[in-house]
């Protein structure tokens, strides 16, 4: 199939790409002057993929909540011991994370790139699950779940997502619950593994002071020595999700001093991909920036009224099947904050968008994007996320430059709807 290269002149970057025979997509970005090489090996499989047809079977299955994350933990354990150790013997630090729809395994190193790359590819492609090691992990993950239970920021974030969704599994905590993980067995792990860890469902991204063609040869060679099943389309099932929110408000009580309050807007039609998704994402983010960014009159007013502090933030997330914006932070008066922000959003929708503030917001976002490109981690993780959604990370600046004021106006009307709004608060527990 051969190596393709993509030049991004304005950014002074060249990306090398090859899709191998087994379907694995490999990307290499040379970063001169850096010490570190960073590699991620990611499957398009996360916490939402809990209902699917296992590879080679005819019947669909539902698997326990938290299994994608559990699998991530367990892949590190091998018959000879812990893969973390293999990496650290080779001077690399390894890690992994599970999101709603991705599981990524990664390392960073300043020496022995090829050796570490072999370790990364091989450990992900050679599962070893036993009943005993699966049981042992339940205690560790149980403590991880409790750690998150004590974290008010995590609780308010998930509380808000729970409010939004009636059925979609994005509302399920990525790690599951102590109860749901109790049901996990080595056989269910294998079943998920066989289905979702096929090379054709994965992306390998390597960035650092390396030689691209050498690295691609090396990966090709590694893969040609292994046999894989024929690639097959993965069938995943999701219940139909209404566009309304499941719950308009929730209050969680915890031992905190300062309440937290977040407002969410649920995206009604999260079924975009490619450039259309990128344009939409960038537009919602611009709209948020203009409406509530630090240089906006609204931010100034909220700060002055004592309703927000420096923890105030906002963000938009969209993946196939779900999408939402969230905004909020610590506040002494959560109800008042909700009232004021809803007022501001309504008013902003009625007024015409100022060209000045549009230009300013766009400049700010372009600058922030350039800053992100200093980070090899950002490039690898975001590129992969974009690629799974058929977008190209390096299109961000041209797409920003192609946007116009009326694109933002359209998003304002369609995304920030009253009926799509929901609120979650963490408040001080009454003793």
């Amino acid at each position, binding site marked *: 199939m051969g190596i393709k290269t993509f030049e991004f002149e304005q950014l002074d970057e060249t990306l090398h790409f090859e899709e191998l025979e087994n379907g694995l997509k490999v990307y290499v970005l040379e970063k001169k002057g850096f*010490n570190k090489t960073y590699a991620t090996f990611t499957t398009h499989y996360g916490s939402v993929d809990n209902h699917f047809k296992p590879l080679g079977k005819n019947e669909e299955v539902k698997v326990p909540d938290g299994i994608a994350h559990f699998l991530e933990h367990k892949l590190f354990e091998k018959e000879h011991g812990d893969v973390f150790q293999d990496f650290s013997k080779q001077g690399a630090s390894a890690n992994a994370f599970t999101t709603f729809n991705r599981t990524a395994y990664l390392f960073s190193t300043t020496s022995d790139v090829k050796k570490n790359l072999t370790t990364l590819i091989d450990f992900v492609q050679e599962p070893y699950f036993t009943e005993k090691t699966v049981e042992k992990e339940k205690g560790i993950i149980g403590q991880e779940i409790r750690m998150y239970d004590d974290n*008010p920021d995590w609780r308010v974030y998930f509380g808000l997502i729970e409010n939004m969704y009636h059925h979609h599994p994005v509302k399920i905590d990525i790690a599951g619950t102590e109860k749901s993980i109790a049901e996990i067995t080595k056989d269910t792990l294998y079943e998920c593994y066989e289905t979702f860890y096929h090379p054709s469902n994965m992306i390998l991204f390597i960035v650092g002071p390396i030689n691209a063609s050498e690295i691609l040869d090396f990966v090709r060679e590694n893969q040609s020595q292994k046999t894989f099943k024929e690639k097959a389309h993965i069938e995943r099932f999701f219940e139909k999700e209404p566009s309304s929110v499941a719950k308009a408000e929730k209050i969680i009580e915890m031992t905190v001093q*300062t309440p937290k309050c977040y407002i969410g807007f649920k995206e009604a039609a999260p079924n975009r991909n490619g450039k259309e998704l990128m344009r939409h994402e960038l537009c919602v983010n611009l709209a948020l920036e203009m409406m509530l960014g630090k240089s906006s009159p609204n931010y*100034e007013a909220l700060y002055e009224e004592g309703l927000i502090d420096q923890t105030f933030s906002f963000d938009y997330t969209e993946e196939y099947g779900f999408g939402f914006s969230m905004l909020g932070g610590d506040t002494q008066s959560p109800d008042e904050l909700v009232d004021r922000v809803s007022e501001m959003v309504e008013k902003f929708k009625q007024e015409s968008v100022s060209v000045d503030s549009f230009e300013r917001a766009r*400049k700010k976002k372009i600058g922030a994007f350039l800053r992100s490109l200093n980070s*090899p981690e950002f490039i690898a993780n975001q590129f992969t996320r974009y690629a799974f959604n058929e977008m190209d990370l390096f299109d961000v600046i041209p797409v920003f430059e192609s946007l116009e004021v009326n694109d933002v106006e359209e998003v304002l009307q369609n995304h920030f709807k009253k009926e799509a709004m929901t609120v979650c608060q963490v408040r001080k527990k009454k003793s």
Partner: protein
Amino acid sequence: MGIVNHEKTDLHGITVHTIETKKYKTTSFILQIKEAIDEKNVTKRALLSFVLQSGTKDFPSSKELRSALDDLYGATLHADLSKKGENQVISIRMEVANEKFLSNSEPVLDKAFHLLSQVLLAPALENGVFKENIIKKEKRSLKQQIESIYDDKMRYANKRLLEEMYETEPYRLNVYGNENEVDAITSKELFDYYQEVIRNDKLDLYVIGDISASEMVEKVKEHFRFPENRSGDKVSNNRTKDEKRISEVKEIFEEQDVQQGKLHMGYRTYSTYSDDDYFALQVFNGVFGGFSHSKLFINVREKESLAYYAASRFESHKGAVFVMSGIETANYEKAVKIIKEQHEEIKNGNITDSEFEQTKAMINNQVLETIDHPIGLSEVLYHNVVAGTNRTIEEWIEGIKNVTKEDVVEVAKKVTLDTIFFLKGAGTNGN
């Protein structure tokens, strides 16, 4: 020229550090303002860091300042506080896009320089003191910041450990100060304190990017004008050689409604950054709990499934190692026993070759990775300013390489447990 091209120039009142590199798509400015932490000024100094980033003479409100930054292609400006040994350091960081990546090549660098100098030297004033309405808002933000520590149970437990362990030493002070002192600070008092800072504090400015060192020095001379009577080279008291000797381990328990107990343990090391055995201390921490191959991770998490995290970190300038782990309240005795045993193991020289070599490889990797990031690089270099040393990164790497197991055993014998703080769950164990 070594791994980094670091040049240092002492000007009147400020030391300029330039690092020329083509690695980044941005130019970073990091201004470090250092003074000994003390009871009298700790809260004022914290408030000052909030006030300085809220307006300048030309942009006298947060909104105007943020708009100016957005117009500079989303330049970021951020002031924060850290404790380095017994110093309370204010760091003002600014990062701006490199013009060459912008379609319309605006001259942002010079404007950025000017703006940064104004943040330090020309704050927003009225009647010769800080603007009342900025003070009022930032007091509230600071109070919320202090309160938020309580809400994050890991940070809270760490804060309580320091208060107990350093009961009579300045290191006990929280870098954000005391909540109950915030309201009483007047605009006049804060401005008087600010003038002291400008007159006396040690100032170091790091400029990192695709720049010319000599041009940067000229720009600093042009923009940063200090009062004639500025001293700025006050010898600071960063060494506390006469560290307290410990006769008995202090054990403090506190109860809160949390799902998971937070165990924090503080050790004194009796050596700091400028000591010859500093490198051995680094390796000790790595063998003990710095990595995922370390004794704490292997024994507390992997062997016993007691925790999701069990790690240690160390403070270079005060000379301390801190252990932290999230455990079931009922497992307190067991976890403490295992942690103490790991320290004993190292004292007795029970360090395998692979543990030892892995640790050194990982530390080497860690420092090389850290300096890939502009802030990381400036922090590594700034250690020299705080400790009054002149160590290059090459010497640092060499220092780690030369550490022997015997050195680690020697330093492990000096390391002494001082205080254990345990935040335990109140009766309930969640479900």
